[in-house]
């Protein structure tokens, strides 16, 4: 299977992993074509779309986890995008649920998905800071400043 995919996906690297896992590394604009090819080769089920923030290497990986019922193989597709130009085309036409995942990633990481009809905030209410799941967002400090911390039992607010 890996050899067949290497032939089809010319511009990306395909690695084999242990057991029944494959890995495909590509970059932003080519992600959609790679996913279409994978879907037509038998990977019908989209498990998850997520994003990993590699702040030291100054890039973000939009990661797609795919599963094939017919071949019983799992594929991880990593679409790398530079941290200052976070634009990835949308996959909402291939799988309808991808639109919801992209809405969440846009809110949490700040990645622009071009072509997605609805990128309004889904989980957060009246959020003014930077996207919260990035590595340079300090959540403990935010919780201390915004909501206060209860120190001891004696001082309970009365």
């Amino acid at each position, binding site marked *: 299977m890996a050899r067949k995919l290497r032939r089809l996906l010319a511009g990306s690297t395909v690695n084999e992993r242990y057991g*029944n*896992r494959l890995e495909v590394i590509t970059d932003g604009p080519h992600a959609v074509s790679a996913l279409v090819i994978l879907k037509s080769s038998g990977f*019908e*089920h*989209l*498990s*998850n779309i*997520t994003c*990993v*923030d590699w702040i030291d290497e100054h890039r973000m990986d939009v*990661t797609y*986890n795919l*599963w094939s*019922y017919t071949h*019983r193989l*799992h594929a*991880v597709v990593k679409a790398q995008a530079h941290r200052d130009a976070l634009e990835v085309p949308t996959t909402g036409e291939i*799988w*309808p*649920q991808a*639109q*919801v*995942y992209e809405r969440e990633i846009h809110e949490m990481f700040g990645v622009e998905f071009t072509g997605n009809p609805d990128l309004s905030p*889904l*989980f*957060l*209410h009246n959020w003014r800071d930077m996207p*919260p*799941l990035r590595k340079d*967002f300090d*959540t*403990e400090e935010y919780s201390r400043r915004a909501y206060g911390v209860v120190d001891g039992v004696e001082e309970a607010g009365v």
Partner: protein
Amino acid sequence: MSDFYEVTKIAETDEYATYDFFFGPNHPGMHGNFGYVCDVVGSTITRVRVNAGQLHRGFEKLMEQNLWFQNISLIPRICVPDPDPNEVAYCTAVERLMGIEIPVRAKFLRSLTLEMSRMTSLLMGMGALGAMMGLYGVMYRMMNERDRVLDFFEWLTGARIYHIYNLPGGVRRDLPEGFAAKLESLLDDMEYNLREWDSLLFENPVVHRRLKGIGKISADEAVTYGLVGPNLRATGFTADVRKDDPYAAYPFLDFQIITTEGGDALARAVQVRKEYEAAIQLIRKILEAMPGGEFKVYLGNPLKFTVPAGDTYARVESSKGEYGYYVVSNGGLKPYRISVRGPSLPAGLSLCHKHLPGMRIDDVAIWMASFSVCPPDFDR
């Protein structure tokens, strides 16, 4: 159907005929804290917007701040009715990254708690389905039954609901004396009660009429939308993570994948009942085949525990479908990124835009209960 057409003709000329209806968070027909904002004409829905995020806790960010072993106390709280698959998925991912194998007895103990947890969650699901239609007696009896299983969990692990029982490397403690015998007698009681619930819920003509035709979906469409678990198997598609991508003790046990034909809410209810019965029989097989031996692999000091760099995706079959944990590690003391895939996201947030328009308001709660939409696992 002609009423629908006439009503929307009125709606075209009169802008006040459409109103916003909050099938909202504070509603006894809603599972958990989640809302749909519907545009309604008469009592028929025309458009749906999703009001999610009331249960958002920022789990993925919280898990990056804790050590690998400290996350085990956070993990069960992602899915509220069915917490064990989360623990098993996390531990499977960590063990796969480290490249270790756990002892066989630990695998069987993990499968035992997974199946017991599946039984409690299915009981709550069936009870909720009955309660949405107004049959509250079903809910009361099933919660009573579920409490008896939770007593066994308390005996084994120490807590009723969030049993923090699985560790990377095995489980926390062994079976106590007399556990297997008492569990067998409880299973006999549960099989006897199943006949009573058949006459209350599953062979009730009112329930058949109410559930028929709601949320009909075909197998190809279900795969494209990403439905998993009993929802997918009720359309006739054969897929089960326990067979396709085995984990824990499932390679050693033989059991069948159960499917139902139909694809609507009645088929899903029958599917849930069949899975409940299969879970009881599977627990019997696990107790028979339980081997002896160690139940834990000692992995060194928990405060200095590191995992080699890499990333992996571990999936586990819970009562609602496929639970996935995508774990990324960069070799340090804390996880670098953990992403959780909840099984209710496609049904609750994406399929609603297709199914709910055209449905009456009274059927929305039943639609949600039949798809087992549970908001904590997509709000995280």
